[in-house]
């Protein structure tokens, strides 16, 4: 069906296979492969996959809008059940094929993964040039790209979960890449444990869907095929009545479990605390995994399963609340952090919170558009920050920077573009996506004006914390000897930054949507076959006022930075003196790490210690020792029979023989 099946099969095999080939080649060849080859192979396979994705996109766009979803089976994995039983009620085969769905949503994600990913791979060639683990790094990076593509392209719940878990592993391996640092290993472990919580929730959701989903006729489907599942929960289909004994409660439960999975992956409260720690990994990893792709997988999940959330308004409301809450909390924390990468990490958390919020209130296209522009400007910010860190010889503390504007003549404007796009300043990409998102918040949310007010206040915080970073890094006087001796990175690191800066400037023009005025709708039209079209807007006047207010608030944030740091009209310690509690709350990241330490880690460790002191020695060791002692004691007793005198054995033998014969003789008689 749709675009030629063999064509789609070949191309999707290439998209998935090329990064996999890179991973296998680099990891199996190990140190036999010279860096010169890896330098071309690592980024090459990802960029080649990007070309294949673009070809698939063009091929998809040539189809009519209703016909843009193609599912091809690449590999028949499991086929259970007898085919001739098909059609008889209650008995049917179970198929779990490795199939991919190529539809606009998957393609947008694949473009980000391979496109932004490819640029970051090129950058890594420069950033990791002096690292001993150069080959290992590219092996993991290619593995990550493969896993992420499996996750977004899979047409099957099982392979979606496999991809979901594989990205968690790749993320773990890359966070703990510098395994000589105990803090990096601890951060990797923390990230992985959090991911496993999400994996578990996703697996439970998959089981619930598998066991309870009914076809329109009321027959249980027992399918793991995503197109089948999403078609059957779609509007006009029989779902709420067919949810088994729990009815509407079950679909809410499925929605909440999916939310737990999404929250773990996307670092949303209460599973957020791994993301700032993940900044222990190399900076390209932060850009690729913890800004552009993996952390946005949660948004993808919610949008992909939007038919379920449409049936479960309670779950969708919780999604929106958690997204918005995380957006505000992370933005507040970002204002006081001293580590340049951590500020950007909290910014990522905050922006993804907005996307999750947007997906929760039903503005799916706006959420994905924000995801799309965010991938460019956040990867840009991370890579530019990487250049700064590189120039300062692995120094990440904002307090040691300053005055880098002239010393990094290419990185400075690129970082500035990223900051402007993130803040939502007109003509940069973030402005278009964020204003569309906020306009939807004004029109769609259940308590609309308030949701909009909270969402737009994030704008103020966002532009404040990112321009605080801009000022502390690039302006003022150098505050360390490294900052005085800084020099610009080589072209292999500056060119990718410039490419991303161009994208972060222009990507917004794909969709222009101001309060009911839509001169350009390329993006939402592209996604329309998958997520439908949401064009609910407040009145034109209110929309325009909202647009102006949002933009003004962003500018205000920059103004506050100028007042505090540039013109010194306001004292720097204004908040830390007047609102000390708020400052401490922000600096200590709302104390979540301490809460988890006290509430979860300590009790679990105490339980473990108790087990190791009582249960293990008494129960397990005790049982083993008891068996050993019983056997030893018994054999001590029997030992006395063994004298070693042959005649005693013979006597016993004869005695028993005589007794046996007597018994036999008596019985015969």
């Amino acid at each position, binding site marked *: 069906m749709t675009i030629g099946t063999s064509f789609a099969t070949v191309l999707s095999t290439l998209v998935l296979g090329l990064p996999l080939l890179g991973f296998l080649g680099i990891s199996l060849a190990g140190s036999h492969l010279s860096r010169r080859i890896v330098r071309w192979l690592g980024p090459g396979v990802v960029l080649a996959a990007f070309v294949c994705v673009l070809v698939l996109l063009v091929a998809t766009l040539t189809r009519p809008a209703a016909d843009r979803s193609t599912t091809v089976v690449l590999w028949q994995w499991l086929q259970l059940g007898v085919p001739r039983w098909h059609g008889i009620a209650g008995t049917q085969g179970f198929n779990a094929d490795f199939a991919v769905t190529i539809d606009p949503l998957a393609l947008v994600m694949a473009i980000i993964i391979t496109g932004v990913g490819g640029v970051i791979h090129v950058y890594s060639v420069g950033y990791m040039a002096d690292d001993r683990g150069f080959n290992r790094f590219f092996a993991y990076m290619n593995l990550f790209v493969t896993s992420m593509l499996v996750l977004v392209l899979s047409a099957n719940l099982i392979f979606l979960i496999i991809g979901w878990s594989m990205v968690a592993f790749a993320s773990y391996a890359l966070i703990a890449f510098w395994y000589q640092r105990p803090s990096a290993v601890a951060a990797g472990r923390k990230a992985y444990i959090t991911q496993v919580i999400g994996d578990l929730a996703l697996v439970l959701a998959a089981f619930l869907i598998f066991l309870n989903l009914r076809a329109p006729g009321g027959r249980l489907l027992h399918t793991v095929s995503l197109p089948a599942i999403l078609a059957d929960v779609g509007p006009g289909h029989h779902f709420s009545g067919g949810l088994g004994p729990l009815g509407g409660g079950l679909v809410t439960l499925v929605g909440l479990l999916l939310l737990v999975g999404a929250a773990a992956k996307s670092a949303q409260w209460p599973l957020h605390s791994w993301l700032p720690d993940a900044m222990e990994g190399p900076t390209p990893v932060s850009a690729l995994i913890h800004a552009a792709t993996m952390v946005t997988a949660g948004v993808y999940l919610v949008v992909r399963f939007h038919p379920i959330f449409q049936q479960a308004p309670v779950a969708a409301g919780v999604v929106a609340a958690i997204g918005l809450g995380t957006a505000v909390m992370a933005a507040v924390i970002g204002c006081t952090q001293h580590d340049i990468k951590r500020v950007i990490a909290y910014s990522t958390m905050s922006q993804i919170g907005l996307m999750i919020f947007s997906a929760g209130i039903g503005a799916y296209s706006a959420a994905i558009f924000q995801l799309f522009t965010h991938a460019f400007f956040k990867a840009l910010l991370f890579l530019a920050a990487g250049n700064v860190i590189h120039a300062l010889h692995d120094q990440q503390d904002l307090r040691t920077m300053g005055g880098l504007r002239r010393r990094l003549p290419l990185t400075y404007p690129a970082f500035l573009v990223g900051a402007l796009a993130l803040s939502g300043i007109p003509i940069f990409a973030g402005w278009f996506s964020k204003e569309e998102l906020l306009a939807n918040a004004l029109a769609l949310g259940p308590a609309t004006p308030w949701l909009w007010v909270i969402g737009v206040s994030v704008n103020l915080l966002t532009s404040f914390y990112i321009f605080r970073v801009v000022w502390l890094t690039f302006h003022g006087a150098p505050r360390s000897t490294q900052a005085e001796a800084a020099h610009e990175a080589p072209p292999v690191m500056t060119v990718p930054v410039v490419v991303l800066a161009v994208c972060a400037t222009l990507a917004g023009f794909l969709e222009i949507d101001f309060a009911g005025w839509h001169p350009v709708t390329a993006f939402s039209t592209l996604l329309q076959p998958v997520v439908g079209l949401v064009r609910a807007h407040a009145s034109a006047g209110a929309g325009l006022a909202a647009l102006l207010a949002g933009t003004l608030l962003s500018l205000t944030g920059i103004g506050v930075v100028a007042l505090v740091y540039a013109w010194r009209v306001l004292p720097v310690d204004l908040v830390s003196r007047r609102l000390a509690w708020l400052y401490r709350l922000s600096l200590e990241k709302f104390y979540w790490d301490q809460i988890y330490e006290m509430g979860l880690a300590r009790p679990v460790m105490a339980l473990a210690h108790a087990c190791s002191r009582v249960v293990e020695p008494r129960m397990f060791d005790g049982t083993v020792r008891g068996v050993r002692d019983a056997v030893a004691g018994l054999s001590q007793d029997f030992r006395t029979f063994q004298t*070693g005198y*042959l*005649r005693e054995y013979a*006597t016993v033998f004869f005695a028993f023989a005589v007794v046996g014969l007597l018994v036999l003789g008596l019985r015969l008689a």
Partner: protein
Amino acid sequence: MSPQLFPGFIGLSAAMFAIGAMGVLLRRNPLVVFMSIELMLNAANLVLVTYGRYTHTMDGQVFAIVVITVAACEVVVGLALITGVFRRGRRLDLDDLSELRQ
């Protein structure tokens, strides 16, 4: 052979067996114990042959020949063991071998 003689043969066999058994139990020289075992085996052979004649079948004789063959094999193994023990300890006393239990 007249049937009246059968109790005599059986009695002789029983006596041989008892003498052999006592030898096994009481003597300490392994060679003598070995000869006693041969005595017991031959007592059993005598019973087999006697009953073979009594029932006018060849089964008893055949069995006796099998026993003689097995006894020959057993002698080979047993004498090898005794020679080995003698070479090691220069003494032949079964009770001394009780140290093998350790």
